[in-house]
Structures are given as C-alpha cells and as structure tokens.
C-alpha cells in the first residue's frame, strides 16, 4: 500500500508527464505505481486523465495546439498500456463502461477531432473500435453487430457529410434500438443531433465521455420504463 505522500507524488508525475508530453516520465511513474501497489484506477483517473484535462485547458487558451495534444496523447497511452492490465475485475466493471464504435462518416476526411474524442474514450476505460475516416455508412452498423458495442460515436466536419449520420442512425436503430448513438463535429448542434434522432451530442472531446455515460443511463431508464409498462 502507498501512503498519501507517495500517492500524490506518483499522481503528480503522471499528470505532469502527460502535460509536458514526457512519455518516459509517465512510463517510469506508471511502473512505480504498479510496483508500489497504487490503485491503477486511481492512477489512471487522478494522474493521466487529470493531466489530459489540463491539456484541454491549455488548448482552449491557445497555449497548446494540435501537435502538442497528440504528443500528450502518446505520453498518456504510454501510461495506460502499463496500468490497464492491472485493473481488477471490479474496477474493470467500473472503468469499462462499454464498447464504442467510432468513425468519421463517408465522404469526410476530417479526422483530427475524431481522434481526440477516441482518446477520451480510451482514457475512460472504454474498448474503442476505430473505423477511421471516410467510412461507408453500412460499415458502422456492421461493426456494431460484429463487436456487440453499446455506443456508436459519429463524427462529421462538413454539412453534407453530416447528412450521412441520419442514415447511419436509422440503420442501426432499426436493428437495435438499445444502441446509444452520439454525434459530434463542427457543423453539428444539439438541435441537429435531436432532429437526426441521436441519443447524445457533445461539443468537444472533453465533454464526449460524460455525455456518453449520461446517454447510456437515459437509455437504460427509458428501457426500464418501457418494460414496466409492458408488464402490468
């Protein structure tokens, strides 16, 4: 077990390593966390993810730009790869909220934003199936079935390609209404997401995961109510 002082020290090094894109530092601190028996879930959430939150703020303030974020992401993945295998079954359950199929819809090659959203899901412990960019619309439905994922995250940066999302949502919901679908990208708004029949929308990568979790619980509630209604 680790005392508070040691814990804080490791968490700070994990966070700093992510913020200053120092992959080596993150790896050393992660190994130390494992050796000293620091709760890996604690290390991921309050070390790595906390660092990424600061990175997000620096990007907002235009102190960091996309290359910096991508390097921070590498540092973060360096830590995740070490810490994740040590999560216990119980923590896995807490951490692994599900599986996500993510991709940029057909005709659209803008994938920088999608990659950032993907990373947030990785940090939060989701298993992510990344289909890349310019993804044929049927592919999302196929991949959902193949992986039995409970979340689909669709990205589009153009107003025309955005229309493809509506088709994907329809295709998937028709087969499996329980899948939670979220959409994002610069041309989208909450209103458009609603019109398309999406279950969730987030403006940026930072909010994407929280919104995904909310979205799933909304769907669960709805489901529970429907079942109540069905059995008198």
């Amino acid at each position, binding site marked *: 077990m680790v005392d508070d002082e040691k814990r804080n020290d490791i968490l700070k090094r994990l966070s700093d390593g992510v913020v200053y894109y120092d992959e080596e530092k993150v790896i050393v601190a992660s190994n130390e966390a494992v050796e000293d028996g620091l709760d890996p879930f604690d290390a991921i959430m309050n070390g790595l993810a906390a660092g990424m939150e600061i990175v997000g703020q620096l990007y907002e303030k*235009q102190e960091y*730009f*996309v*290359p*910096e974020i*991508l*390097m921070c992401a*590498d540092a973060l993945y360096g830590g995740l790869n070490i810490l994740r295998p040590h999560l216990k079954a119980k923590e896995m359950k807490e951490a692994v909220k599900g599986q996500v199929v993510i991709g940029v819809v*057909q*005709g*659209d*090659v803008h*994938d*920088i934003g999608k*990659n950032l959203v993907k990373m947030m899901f990785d940090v939060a412990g989701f298993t992510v199936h990344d289909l890349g960019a*310019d993804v044929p619309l049927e592919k999302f439905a196929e991949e959902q079935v193949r992986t039995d994922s409970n979340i689909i995250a669709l990205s589009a940066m153009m*107003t*025309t*390609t955005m*229309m*493809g999302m509506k088709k994907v949502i329809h295709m998937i919901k028709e087969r499996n209404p329980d899948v939670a679908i979220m959409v994002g990208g610069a*041309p989208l708004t909450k209103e458009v997401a609603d019109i398309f029949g999406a279950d969730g929308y987030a403006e940026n990568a930072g909010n994407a995961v929280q919104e995904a979790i909310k979205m799933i619980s909304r769907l669960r509630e709805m489901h529970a109510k429907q079942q109540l209604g069905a059995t008198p």
Partner: protein
Amino acid sequence: MGGNGLNSREKVLKLLNHEEVDFIPCFSGMGNIVMDGLKKYGLQFNEVHQDARKMALAAKATPELFGYDCAIVPFDFNVCAEALGSKVQYYKTEDILYPSIPEKIIKSFEDIKLPSDPENAGRFPVVMEAIRILKKETGNDVAVGSWVLGPFTLAGQVTDLTKLLKDTFKKPNEVIQFLTPLRDLLIAEAKLYQKAGADFITVREMGTPVDLLSPRVWKSMIQPFMIKMREEIGSPVVLHICGKTNEIIHFMHECGYDAVSVEHQNDVAMSRQKIGPPPKNLLLGNLNTYKVMVEGTAENVANEVRAAIDGGVDAIWPGCDIWPGTPAENMKAMVETTREYGSKKKKGG
C-alpha cells in the same frame, strides 16, 4: 456603380495589380460551383471532377447566372495527390460528396515519387484543358482562376497526418525534407495552370490555421515554403488559409503575395490594421460559406457582405469553396450587395 465600363475580368486584374480602384469586386480563388449552375448545364455534382468540358461548364455557370466576377477550377482537393500516385475515390451517389483519398500511400520521404512528365500526370491535363475552355468561352469577360494546395496540406492528403503533426515538433527537419519535393510539384502545377491561361493563382495552405498549428511553427516551418512558392509562381497570386488566422495574418502578409485571403473566423478589421492599407496590401474575405451563405437568408448574406466591407476587405470573397447547395437568392444578394454597398463605400471614402 464604380468600375465604370470595366468588365469583371478587368476589375479583378486591376485590383490584383494593386491599382487604385473605385469598386469592390465579388470573386474568389476557390471552387464556385452551385446546384443551379449544374442544373443549367444538366450536370451532376459527381461528374464534374474528371471531365474538362463538364468542369468548365460547372465553373462558368456561376458568373453567367449571378454576375460573379470569376470562374475557378478545379473543385476538389486531390488533384496533386493523384499526380503523386494516390488513388482517388470518386463517388457515384447524388449527394454532394467531394472525392476523397481512402488510403495514405506515402509512409516516408523515400516513398515520394514525383511524376516524370507533370503535364500528363493525373488530372493536371484535365484542369489545364478546363482552363483553356474557360479562357476561350468566357475569358474575355470574367477572371479565370485556378489554385494549388500548400505543401503541408498536400502532405496531410498523402501521408499520416497525425504523425506529420507530431513531427513538426519531434523531427522538424524531416518534415521540411518531406515538404520540399511536394512544394516543387505544386509550383510546377501552378505553372501548368498559368500556361493554360489562368489569370491568377491561389495557394491554399488550409491545413495550417491556428486551429491546428501554433503561430511559432507557422513562422518557422510553413512560412519559408510559402515565400518560395510566391517567388516561383509570380503575380498575380493569392495566399489563402481557412480557420482561425488572426494570429498569423502578419506572417502570411510577410510572404509577399499580392493578396491574403481569410474566412469568417478572421476579424478583418484587425487584419486590416496588421497588414496596412490598399492598394499595396490586399485583404480578401470573409463570407461564412455555410452558416450564412447556405443556412442564412438573403438579408443575412447582405449584412455579412456589408460587415466585411466595413471591416475593410478589398474584395468580397467567400471564405472557402462556395457550398454547392447555396440558394440562388443568397448568391444574388452577395453579388448585388457587393456592387451597391461597395461602390457607395468607395465613393464615401
């Protein structure tokens, strides 16, 4: 109305030639096709990218229908990548889907293979032929323009962009090595279009706004490439970047292009101050091609045109390719408001 007796082409060229003018033209160096124009010639969006005749018709329909001051080819981003060996996917659907490149074929500098005969590489000859057709059929009246990408944006089309972005920090020298042959091919491309008769060229380094790269990296890494392209291509040549550019507009201006072009996220009044007055320093912009031009009303468009003119632009210029779904009323409002408000403003001083 300003520009007494001058036709569209003469207005555009006088402006880009840095003469004192009493009008504000309405044109751009980027794609200008609209559905009404396609309809006029019985064309589908997906058939205008590979056929010179259809490409030219799609481009010239816009000035014909709306009095826009230019006709521009091509419309998609993949012409140079294709000449480098990338396979381009052309969609068959009726939706407006721009062609795209499904697979990034170039992994490193060693994989770059420049075409031995650029004049016959990929679609360069198609674009050249489209320019010749435009020159012949409408070139006395409207400005015929073409454009090339900048090397960083082209690199993002042919190689892994994530790696490229990280390498701007980790291995800047390798990035520079990678971009150099791409730059030379882009210069060759621009020269082919000039040879075919283009009145002006726009260099679109749109993968490098402040949304993506820091001003510091822009200055140290991108600017030298932009300067070289400007020198080699020669006048009239415009530099365009989409996205946020207020923080780099002075660096763009330093490259010496005849004009700098920006989109709606740029505060043009601030840019005007940074780059200095016309006719030496030209600022083109900055209509929002989707939120206002497509989703807005004609009144919204007119307001944005007036705001841009009040902000000090020297031409009303959509901040990116005109979106094909732009309604006819909005196209008309753009051109008419520019004419009326522009000359009023110029007279008023």
